[in-house]
């Protein structure tokens, strides 16, 4: 089934990757989709399908092949980069700095003046503000990483398997963060949790072996999403 291209008004994000290669291996092929501000896209697919690569390509942590137009610009200027909030498998945090120092550093890096104290508070990390990150539990690190991601009020949120391995508290915070930022940003996340994806997302992109095998809105996805997914990826 050919991938359908949905046109969203005023796309915050427009991705076109005809082919993405690392050395000899082709990792991605024929990826195209668009996403408007205020909409959420869930990227689904089996392990190794290339979901993380797509996100990294948009974020810019791997060299670009193809085009990723973010807020109208294909080039990643500092202003565009300021609009990108990326949460990957690694936290990007500095173990030898405290929670507060980490956020202060990223504030300086992104040139924003957000109140670090308030941010820590909203992520239930006020008590540990001056504790070094190396002493943090996994859940605390995840919460701090999320705080770091939305620090600069990004217009484009890229979350790579954000729900995986979260404790209850962090999970709850993540959901509330997403619903809070929903109206102000375009959000893209990858996940294995189909039900959760169905609850949150407006659009779905299914990838298998680096190829895009489905892109569509909620209306086109049946409620029995698991079956639908299985039929696509079989």
């Amino acid at each position, binding site marked *: 089934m050919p991938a359908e291209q949905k046109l969203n008004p005023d796309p915050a994000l427009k991705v076109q990757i005809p082919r993405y*290669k*690392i*050395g*000899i*291996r*082709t990792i991605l092929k024929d990826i195209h989709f668009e996403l408007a501000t205020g909409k959420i896209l869930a990227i689904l697919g089996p392990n190794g399908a290339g979901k993380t690569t797509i996100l990294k390509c948009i974020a810019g942590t791997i*060299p670009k092949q193809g085009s990723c137009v973010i807020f109208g610009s294909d080039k990643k200027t500092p202003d565009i980069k300021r609009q990108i909030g990326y949460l990957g498998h690694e936290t990007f945090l500095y173990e030898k700095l405290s929670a507060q120092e980490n956020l202060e550093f990223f504030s300086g890096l992104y040139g924003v003046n957000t109140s670090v104290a308030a941010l820590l508070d909203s992520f239930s990390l006020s008590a540990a503000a001056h504790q070094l990150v190396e002493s943090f539990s996994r859940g605390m690190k995840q919460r701090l990483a999320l705080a770091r991601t939305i620090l600069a009020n990004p217009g484009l949120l890229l979350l790579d398997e954000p729900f995986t391995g979260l404790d209850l508290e962090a999970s709850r915070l993540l959901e509330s963060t997403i619903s809070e930022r929903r109206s102000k940003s375009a959000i893209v996340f990858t996940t294995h949790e189909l039900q959760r994806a169905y609850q949150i997302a407006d659009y779905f992109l299914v990838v298998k072996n680096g190829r895009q095998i489905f892109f569509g809105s909620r209306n086109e996805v049946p409620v029995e999403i698991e079956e639908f997914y299985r039929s696509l990826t079989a």
Partner: protein
Amino acid sequence: MSNVRISDKILLFLIFIMVPVALYFAFAYAPEERVMGVVQRIFYFHVSSAWTSLLSFFFVFVGGALYLWKNDKRFDYFAYAAAELGVFFCTIVIVTGPIWAKPVWNVWWTWDPRLTSTFVLWLIFVAYLILRSSLADHPAVRKYASVYGIIGFIDVPIVYLSIYWWRTIHPRVITPAKVDLHPKMWYSVLICWATILLLYTVLMKLRIRMERLKEEVQILQERVQED
């Protein structure tokens, strides 16, 4: 493809002729130097190799700069081949230097500007080759190597300057202002250099072709992988 073969054949033919000619010039035609004797004849190969290696490293610089500017792999093939050949000829310079120096000045090595600069140049471009082989599969190897090649080449005049006023016992035989050589010697140098340049050209072509073929193999491998 057949075009390339013809020009190669011409080059090889020229070399076949030039090598004995050059040897004749170096060993027979050029008069024996008064002071140094027969050993001095190494000078023709030593100097030709020195000029060739310097030229070759300049090509590394140019190739690297062009690759960074135009992002065309062919410039990088050129730079890589030039680096390998540059090191080869530079090695000849460093080896023939002492061979010449020992019987004449009774020292194996002197830290005069020219020989030292050549040695440092050799070190830098050997490091370049080590960088390339360590980074062989890294996606950015060409960019890194280009940057290093540019910096390395720019370093050379600085090296030379920084030991410039040390006493030199390197004979200043060919200077821009005055040529201290007997004309026959001068012709011999030029003939030798021309021969070495011909050899250099053939080797460069072969090496660049090798790089290109490597790339083609890779592309074919990709195609196989995809199906």
